[in-house]
């Protein structure tokens, strides 16, 4: 259903490019251990194909430390990976579709925005993690906000912005994010062509001149926390310019994007008034990054009910969660529905749990768990926990 909508959009906006030549990776790679039904040894996201659907692939430790150090893998899943001694993600239809699109996208055209939506616990964040891994392995420049709710509803510190009137800074979070950005993209930021285009005047004595490394800009933000939020805005603009020039290919990944448009944040002014997310300095940077006025990039975004307050969690659909503003900002976008597990995926997941000795097996386990969890991935994890 939605794949036809993708094709429709592509027809009207971008012509379909010929598929990238992939190495023909037969799933039955000759590996020392016997290949289990639910696993694949294919750890290159580039090579994930339809035959890998429902199978688990492993993210290597170093990749994991690189990409997900600041977040990106939900806490409950994180605990599970510690117990299982490995980080294994399931290859599912939504993420595979987006990866295929990213492979075949015409990057000379304006940026395409993908929106992952689905009910609570259906696997949006982990799909995003899969796409992020793909982006990292394919050499994209990653701009990744792990969970926007942490900024809007659990910010570490807020303060009135000095540069902009009426705006609020989230400096500690901003600085932490810049560090994360640096770690994720260190191999790309050392590119000699990654230079700033204009001067950035922070104060009388602090200037980041044009033509300096992006890395300097980032370091400035990390070291001078006071200017962290403004650095982010500057950085976002630079990234857009560099992508337009073709120096980087950018992947913007935001989890919980709808938090940018939900008015009831827990960010307050010094007078204890609620701040609308549009009045947070950092928001401007990311809003411009998810705009379509630049090319050579892609934006994958999730909209999640959990990012907003409980009393307003009525619907999981993008139009409701984004609101009028958000919807108009993101329009046109490619909606990607993340659904509950199919039969195959459910069996695969349970087999994985059995193999990891997480679930004590008994006859009839599969059907019972399927019924009780309604094939919802998160609920399945919760139901299997005490078994």
């Amino acid at each position, binding site marked *: 259903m939605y794949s036809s909508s993708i094709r429709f959009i592509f027809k009207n906006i971008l012509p379909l490019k010929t598929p990238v030549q992939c190495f023909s990776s037969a799933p039955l790679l000759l590996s020392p251990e016997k290949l289990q039904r639910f696993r694949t040894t294919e750890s290159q996201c580039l090579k994930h194909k339809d035959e890998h659907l429902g199978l688990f692939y492993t993210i290597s430790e170093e990749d994991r430390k690189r990409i997900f150090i600041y977040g990106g893998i939900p806490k409950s899943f994180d605990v599970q990976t510690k*117990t299982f001694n490995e980080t294994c993600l399931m290859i599912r239809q939504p993420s595979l579709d987006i990866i295929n699109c990213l492979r075949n996208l015409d990057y000379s055209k304006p940026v395409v925005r993908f929106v992952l939506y689905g009910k609570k616990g259906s696997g949006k964040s982990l799909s995003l993690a899969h796409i992020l891994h793909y982006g990292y392995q394919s050499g994209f420049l990653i701009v990744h906000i792990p969970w926007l709710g942490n900024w809007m509803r659990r910010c570490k510190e807020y303060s009135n912005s000095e540069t902009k009137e009426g705006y609020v800074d989230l400096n500690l979070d901003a600085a932490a994010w810049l560090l994360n950005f640096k770690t994720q993209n260190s191999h790309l930021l050392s590119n000699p062509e990654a230079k700033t285009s204009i001067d950035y005047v922070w104060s009388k004595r602090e200037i980041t001149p044009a033509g300096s490394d992006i890395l300097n800009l980032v370091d400035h933000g990390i070291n001078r926390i006071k200017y962290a939020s403004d650095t982010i805005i500057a950085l976002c603009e630079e990234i857009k310019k560099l992508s337009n020039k073709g120096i980087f290919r950018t992947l913007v990944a935001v989890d919980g994007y709808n938090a940018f448009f939900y008015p009831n944040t827990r960010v307050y002014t010094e007078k204890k008034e609620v701040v609308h997310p549009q009045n947070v300095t950092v928001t401007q940077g990311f809003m411009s990054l998810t705009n379509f006025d630049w090319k050579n990039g892609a934006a994958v975004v999730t909209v999640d009910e959990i990012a907003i307050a409980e009393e307003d969690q009525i619907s999981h659909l993008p139009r409701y969660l984004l609101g009028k503003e958000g919807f108009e900002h993101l329009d046109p976008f490619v909606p990607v529905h993340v659904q509950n597990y199919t039969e195959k995926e459910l069996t695969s997941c349970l087999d994985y749990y059995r193999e990891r*000795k*997480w679930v*004590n097996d*008994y006859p*009839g*386990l599969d059907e*019972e768990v399927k019924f009780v969890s309604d094939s919802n991935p998160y609920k399945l994890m919760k139901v299997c*926990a*005490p078994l």
Partner: protein
Amino acid sequence: MFGITKIQFFNSNLKVLSTIIQQNGMSQYPNYYIKPIYKKDSQEELIKSGEIKKLSHLPTRAALADQTSSFSNDPLANLLINYCMREGNKILARNLVEQCFENIKRLQLEKYHKTTNEEDKHQIDLDPKSILHKAIENCKPILQLTPIKRGGVRYQVPVPITDKKAQFISMKWLIAAGQEKESTVRFNLQLARELIDAANNTGRVIKKKQDLHRQCEANRAYAHYRWS
């Protein structure tokens, strides 16, 4: 009314019924309604022994809300949930116990992955319910002290204990041990640790049981006060 007295049942040669029938003054069911046998394997046993025919004449109570015939449903786990429950908050109690089981699994799996020896790996029990059963079994006291007044003095007299009471005391101690913790540690984690310790015959609850046994041994001299 249809009154059947306790004697009639206890004296009729039905071994099954003598374990099922109970006089319960508080139940809203008439006292001749028997408790349901909701597990498939229990029913299989009855069919084999032929006692199921005798049940065809007795009305049954409805199964409770926490009873299912699934293998994942454990009567002892249900009891534990009930004992942890406060003010009827079954959802919270069940969550606590389920998280406790999850923690048991994580702790055991950690140990499992650490040990390299195959034999030792087999020794490690990864099933939280079996650990619960072992823990409860290991913590059951054999005697208890009751105060008996003789000559104006209250002596603590060691007295034998029924199995049900022992089980109840064991579970109560385990839960109490789970609650004695630093405020940073969660109840379900502490309880998980206690259960694993008790299943290995170590830990606070076992010590408590052994203390009780020591006390009973010390008060042996008063044992005859039970009858005097």
